[in-house]
């Protein structure tokens, strides 16, 4: 029969239409919020989503996975005396690995010893060039540069972030990437312990040799 296929199609669209309101109704009856709630958004972006699945941005936001990456930022630790300990040692690996070459780092030397200071004097990232690939964060040996979750980046000007604008506390990093942070902390602790054990061992080994 001509038109049978179209009727079949309409059945599918009708089911979608019905599903949207049926889902709304069941959520409403069970006293849960389908809209403007975290579980509602999670439901609508899960395999159980039925009917209309739109997330009403900006009132609602998608839940970002931990690995989501947008722009890079630098991490500092807050010390007890209020000073900042920048993790970056200005080794330059991020600048070398960056595909669009959007990272500029100034490393300076200690005027007395002439050796490089393990902290960047200046650090620029041209955010207009950045392609959000995350290679800098992946290859940084000091876990000093990480990718941010902030994606609302529209602006009226060109964006070259300097050191001040790039720095964010490690607590912020812990907030957006708890699992990564925990893993890196554990790694660091293990490394420090291994180092301490090694130091103790060498001290022990050299102790008998030393004249008593």
């Amino acid at each position: 029969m001509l038109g049978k296929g179209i009727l079949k199609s309409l059945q599918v669209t009708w089911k979608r239409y019905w599903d949207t309101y049926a889902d709304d109704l069941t959520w409403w009856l069970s006293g849960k919020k389908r809209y403007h709630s975290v579980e509602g958004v999670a439901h609508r972006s899960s395999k159980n989503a039925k009917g209309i699945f739109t997330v009403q941005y900006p009132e609602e936001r998608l839940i970002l996975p931990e690995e989501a990456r947008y722009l890079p930022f630098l991490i500092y630790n807050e010390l007890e005396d209020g000073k900042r300990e920048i993790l970056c040692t200005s080794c330059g690996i991020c600048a070398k690995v960056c595909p669009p070459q959007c990272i500029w780092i100034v490393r300076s030397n200690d005027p007395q010893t002439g050796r490089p200071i393990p902290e960047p004097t200046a650090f620029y990232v041209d955010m207009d060039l950045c392609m959000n690939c995350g290679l800098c964060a992946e290859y940084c040996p000091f876990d000093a540069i990480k990718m941010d979750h902030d994606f609302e980046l529209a602006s009226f000007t060109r964006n070259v972030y300097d050191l001040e604008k790039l720095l964010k506390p490690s607590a912020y990093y812990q907030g957006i990437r708890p699992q990564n942070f925990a893993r890196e902390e554990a790694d660091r602790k293990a490394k420090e312990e291994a180092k301490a054990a090694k130091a103790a061992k060498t001290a022990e080994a050299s102790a008998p040799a030393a004249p008593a």
Partner: protein
Amino acid sequence: MTAPAPTLDATAQLNASLLARFPESVSTETRPGYSGIIVKKENLVEVAAAIRDEFGYDLLTAVTAVDYLAENKMEVVYHAYKTTGGAGLTFRVQAERVDPIEVPSLVEIWAGADFQEREAYDLFGIRFTSHPDLRRILMWEGFDGHPLRKDWKEAFFEEETKPFKSRWPDGQHVYAEFKNPFRDNLNFPKDFDPNAYQPTGEDDLYLSLENHSLKTESGIKTDQIVVNMGPHHPSTHGVLRVAVTLDGETILGLKPVMGYLHRNHDKIGERSTYLQIMPYTDRLDYFNSMSNNLGYAITVEKLMKIPVAERAEYIRVIMAELTRIQNHLIFVGTLTNDLGAMYTPSLYAFEERELILDIFEAVSGARMMCNYLRFGGVVRDIPDDVLGKIKDLIYERLPAKTAEMERLLNDNEVLIGRLKGVHVLNAETAVRYSVTGPVLRAAGVPYDLRRADPYSVYDRFDFDVAVRHNGDMLDNYLIRFDEIWQSLKILEQALKQMPEGPVNSQKLQYQVRVPAGEAYGRIESPKGELGFYIVSNGKPTPYRYHVRPASFVNITALEEMCRGSKIQDFIALLGMLDIVMGELDR
């Protein structure tokens, strides 16, 4: 006892038989890391005809050139394969690097060489003699020089290769245009005044269209008209322009005009380190970044001769097949959009795609620009909760929704009416035009690289090569659904077989060592054969990096498929070829 005579391997045997057939005009490749044969320029057409007809290499997939500046040679490299499967044959011609560089054209033998030869002419300045329509294809007509030649420098030239020295350790930020002496981003040819420029390329374009004489049927004088579709047209899937000659509504001939999105991906690759290229490959076919990553990683691994971590192989397959599913879903959505079924099917398709992209985001960090693969493995393991999500999708959601999509569209009389029997591409023509992917399989050639020339771990899965036999639009449409079902089948097996273990066989290093040599790696991307041709000279950056995109070569057959059909069906055909301009223009 005498030891058995050493048997030659298949490639050496083939080379030997070619040498025996053409002792005068063929010589074997002797450079270390290279393979294949060198054909004398004068005998190229004759040898190529024999390669196709006598040796059975009927599918010419890639044509590209390499500029060996130090040796003062220009080389054109051809990769030919058999549609029955198996390894390919690399043959090449060399020419003195003195303008005009002339090499015979192979369009007569493989029509699929057409656009690829034009590309080599455009970017290298190699003149293919007896090419029917040798014009620039990616760059504009007033462009100065040939950008892939090794002695060409762009306007913003800073350094030959990345990383640039100005970035570290004394990296004061300066905008690139402030460093440029002209504060202008264009180089012009000598004696060129941009204000007085009169484009001549347009005339060449219109002249290249077949000129059909005026018809006087039944005393009424008719005339052909030329219509420009695009570059900004909702049906062209990006900035593609097509100049069409029409007789009423019937298409007499057409020429695609491309390059509006050209950024010289090859040149970017030749200036970046091997690792830095990886995120750029995402931007080729931006729907299928995982597949692009896979093709590139496989090629570099071939050159480096490194193994891939077992678990990573399975993760790669899972990602590549999820990519295929979402690509084909989008295909169905956009095709129906082009046919006039605005929004409903495409939004249904996008919903499922959304769930797949969520998985990509959770494993790689980005929804479309994944940058997930590394040489020897992948960046990170799939988190457990994401693995659960993938299982949910594969076992529950996607089969149900694909079936729903089929219910929604496949019996629809309007859809069938628009697709059935339109734009028939027969198998012979498809192979001649180097068409690959679903379009070739819908024409009745069961040529799927996952089976014909298996890469990664595809030889461990049980699946059917989707094939249909009519070669019309309806078959092209239905084969996408067949492929989704086969992908789901592969995914189920991959999830079951996936072993535990590390996800990368290599140490974390940002500068990989790639030994000198050449490699052509190819995968079955959702749109067809995606090939990467890389020449390494042992330096941190590739000497030659070439992408053979499926969209670009498939579109060669566009004119052949359209001739004689109606203009409204042409719009559907563009949707059916499944082109992506990011890949087509590179």
